[in-house]
């Protein structure tokens, strides 16, 4: 094993990484503590100081001060997790929050121990989200928070549930919590009139708790009937975690366990409950948050009323069309019968006495309204009149990307992609804020001009691509096929006549080779393409589309550009499902140089889109004029190259074949590293671009 580093050696390294000349960080004590460690530990700590320093020097210095002590007490894996957590916190919430996390190192380590057996939100959420969608009722979302509660639209769970010793039990607890919060919505607890409930009480908070106690007992009985398996788990958890419920409470709650008991029965017993001792909270019951419930409900009611009435108007309109033929006079009276037997929640709609099959979205709305009121109020069933509602009153408006950028900055409606940090040797989570935007179509003579300019080439491309098209070949001498191969048969008969063995390959089979390729073109729209390159790119795309239309491959074209991680933009030029129309041509004509060349997010997003297309072969072709780059950002240089390389590796792992066409003469320095050998083409002259791109694609997919 290598000799441990001396104090001077360590200090020299720290001086460089922590830039002590400018920051005046005192590295002496750290170096002194570190020089007493073995070489492996030293290397581990120093490596992490260096990695964190690429994120922020002060953070690295803080880590350096604590590390020598930590390495003696904790496992290296845990320290590594902590270091990553520090950097993530810094990325997400800034320096102050990160230093705070650093200060709570002991708590993190303790939590880490319990995590071994705890149910982590990120692990249980995918399962429990589906679980709760499988139950009847409104589709509740699952979110991470600091406690267990629900507002009737989402269920919040803490990051970790570790009340019990075993992992399986903790999962059961998480499941019971989710089911119980679902029950609050399903069985009407959240319909309570919160103000009336606490009005005039000496201790409103206590009244709310006692009310929650009553409801807990009622809901538990509901669950025992509806989901007996779950109820068994809940009883098992209660037995492990808490004292049995005392006799007074049991006596009070007995009627609440009856099948017909409702919210009103609980409310009627609230006075009596307030006179009892505090309700011993059950481990799965969570919290009631009336304010959040009321806020969510207020936002939902009008919107859903409008939505439902508009949908019913559509249904009535449809029915009217049918009736118009038979000549009857319609008056559009909707009635709804609710079927709640056996835990179902189903609706039958009649229009003027005739049954109507409600589409799924109408059923969803009826379910949600029913959960809010316990019935469908008659005014909800009046179809909306013409122009009564404006679409903005009931539809979730798509966020206009430009308005979002311009307003006070927020990330609403954007997609997040991670980015590989070379220095940290780790991903930065949710780092790139990405939006798809439209290219403004420009209707000019550019497409026509281009086709005229390259008319000879276009003709050649068309025939070339035509030849590659789905070639059907007649395979002869097959053992099976649609028709008898007469030549083979004659030969075989002659053979048989001579006493030789007869071949069994006597048929012809029509082989239909189906080209099953989806390709995404990722076009550089960075500022550096302004002028000639942009012109060449647009010409290349026109020719390419012309050729691809002959071939019948599914293709999409997106332009990418960005300025800093907070503003990564992909410009839709043509999506996979879109036909090649005049509008697409106009968008190609409208491609204009934008900002910088941040590439990782674009590759990741297009990989995702490619993954959603059904195809046997998926190809991602990048047209670019230079290395990855961004404004005043470490993206320039090795960082950007490594992130791009990582994004390409991810794409390859997902079964996508990436390929790059560039006109950057220096690209030989970095392209082989990013794309791998033979996965790129460097063109010496911009002028070659239009002529070559289609041809390169043909060779690539031949």
């Amino acid at each position, binding site marked *: 094993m290598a000799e441990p580093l001396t104090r001077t050696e360590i200090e020299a390294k720290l001086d460089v990484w922590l830039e002590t000349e400018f920051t005046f960080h005192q590295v002496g004590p750290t170096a002194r503590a570190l020089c007493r460690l073995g070489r492996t530990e030293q290397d581990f700590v120093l490596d992490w100081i260096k990695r964190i320093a690429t994120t922020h020097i002060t953070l690295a210095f803080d880590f350096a001060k604590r590390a020598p002590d930590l390495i003696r007490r904790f496992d290296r894996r845990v320290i590594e997790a902590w270091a990553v957590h520090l950097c993530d916190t810094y990325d997400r919430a800034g320096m102050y929050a990160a230093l705070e996390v650093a200060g709570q190192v002991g708590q993190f380590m303790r939590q880490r121990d319990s995590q071994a057996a705890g149910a982590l939100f990120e692990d249980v959420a*995918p*399962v429990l989200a589906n679980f709760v969608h499988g139950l009847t009722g409104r589709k509740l979302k699952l979110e991470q928070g600091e406690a267990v509660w629900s507002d009737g639209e989402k269920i919040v769970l803490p990051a970790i549930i570790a009340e019990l010793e075993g992992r399986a039990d903790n999962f059961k607890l998480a499941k019971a919590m989710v089911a119980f919060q679902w029950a609050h919505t399903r069985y009407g607890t959240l319909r309570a009139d919160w103000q009336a409930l606490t009005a005039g009480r000496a201790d409103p908070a206590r009244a709310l708790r006692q009310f929650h106690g009553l409801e807990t007992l009622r809901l538990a009985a509901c669950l025992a009937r509806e989901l007996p*398996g779950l109820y068994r788990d809940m009883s098992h958890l209660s037995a492990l975690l808490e004292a049995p419920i005392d006799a007074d409470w049991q006596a009070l709650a007995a009627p609440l366990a009856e099948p017909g008991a409702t919210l009103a029965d609980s409310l009627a017993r609230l006075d009596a409950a307030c006179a009892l001792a505090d309700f011993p909270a059950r481990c799965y019951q969570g919290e009631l948050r009336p304010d959040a419930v009321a806020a969510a409900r207020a936002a939902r009611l009008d919107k859903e009323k409008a939505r439902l009435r508009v949908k019913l108007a559509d249904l009535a309109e449809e029915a009217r069309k049918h009736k118009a033929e038979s000549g009857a006079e319609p008056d559009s009276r909707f009635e709804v019968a609710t079927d709640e037997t056996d835990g179902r929640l189903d609706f039958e709609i009649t229009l003027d006495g005739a049954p109507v099959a409600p589409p799924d979205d109408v059923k969803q709305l009826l379910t949600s309204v029913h959960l809010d009121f316990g019935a469908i109020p008659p005014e909800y069933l009046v179809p909306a009149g013409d122009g009564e509602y404006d679409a903005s009153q009931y539809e979730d408006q798509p966020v206009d990307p430009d308005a979002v950028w311009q307003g006070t900055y927020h990330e609403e409606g954007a997609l997040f992609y991670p980015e590989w940090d070379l220095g940290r040797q780790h991903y930065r989570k949710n780092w790139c804020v990405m939006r798809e935007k439209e290219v403004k179509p420009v209707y000019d003579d550019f497409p026509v001009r281009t086709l005229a300019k390259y008319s000879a080439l276009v003709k050649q491309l068309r025939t070339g691509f035509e030849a590659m098209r789905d070639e059907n070949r007649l395979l002869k001498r097959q053992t099976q096929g649609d*028709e008898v191969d007469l030549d083979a048969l004659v030969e075989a008969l002659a053979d048989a006549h001579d006493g030789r063995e007869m071949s069994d390959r006597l048929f012809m089979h029509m082989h239909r080779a189906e080209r099953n390729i989806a390709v995404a073109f990722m076009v550089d729209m960075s500022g550096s393409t302004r002028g000639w390159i942009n012109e060449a790119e647009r010409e290349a795309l026109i020719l390419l589309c012309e050729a691809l239309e002959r071939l019948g491959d599914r293709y999409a074209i997106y332009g990418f550009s960005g300025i800093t991680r907070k503003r990564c933009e992909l410009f839709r030029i043509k999506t996979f499902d879109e036909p090649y129309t005049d509008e697409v041509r106009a968008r190609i004509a409208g491609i204009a140089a934008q900002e910088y060349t941040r590439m990782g997010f674009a590759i990741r997003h297009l990989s995702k889109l490619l993954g959603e297309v059904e195809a046997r072969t998926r190809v991602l072709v990048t047209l670019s004029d230079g290395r990855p780059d961004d404004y005043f950002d470490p993206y320039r240089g090795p960082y950007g190259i490594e992130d791009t390389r990582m994004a390409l590796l991810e794409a390859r792992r997902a079964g996508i074949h990436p390929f790059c066409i560039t006109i950057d003469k220096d690209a030989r320095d970095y392209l082989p590293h990013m794309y791998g050998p033979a996965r790129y083409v460097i063109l010496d002259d911009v002028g070659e671009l239009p002529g070559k791109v289609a041809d390169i694609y043909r060779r690539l997919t031949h």
Partner: protein
Amino acid sequence: METHTLSQEEHYIRREPYYEAIGDEIAIFEAAYRNKLPVLLKGPTGCGKTRFMEYMAWRLKRPLITVSCHDDLTASDLVGRYLVKGGETVWVDGPLTRAVRVGGICYLDEIVEARKDTMVVIHPLADDRRALPMEKLGQLIEAGDEFCLAISYNPGYQSVLKDLKQSTRQRFVAMEFDYPTPELERRIVANEAGVDAGLAEKLVRFAHMTRNLKGSGLDEGASTRLLVHAGKLIAGGVAPVVACQSAVAQAVTDDPDMLAAIQELSASLF
């Protein structure tokens, strides 16, 4: 063990298949049959389309020739082809030709899976010509009054590439099938799987849970057929949660999170 080998045109259904009507599909089919109209059955997998065809074949007392279409199925697979026998070529009829000759019911299951060239032979049979062109023989067979063409397709999950063309679908009397109502489905499960009403009820509720998941992770919920499978396993002594997992959950998805979620649903119910 005793097996019967039957040629396709001898495949008469002699015992009444168990079938519970969902609506007026039996009357519609009979009317279409009397008027020599072809029939298109739409609906999710496992909701009883094939059983319905068996039932109708029994009712109308015609042989039923079923062809499950796949992406390599060509027109010759339906019409027939020349084979070589003892140095001579011999024509062998395909299933569609046989059905036309004997006046049977030809049921092409999942028609959109078949190659596009099959439409060439289906179209003339499906309109008022009611004739099957046999290109290779240079013949045309006119179908008798008793012949009936039925096709099925599932509009739920096929990709856009495999949608049924308007020119095809507009030749057929279309009937939509869906999962039966809970009461009916309960009766079907109890009857087919031989389980008691209580268990059948729970299985149907379980099916509804998985159908709630359609669109949020599942392409399709559990079909009635899967419920019958699960019911049979349970009747055979398998624990309910295990039966639901292997007969239903594993059949509808491969996604581990979804499998776990469905397992949790069945564990909550039983």
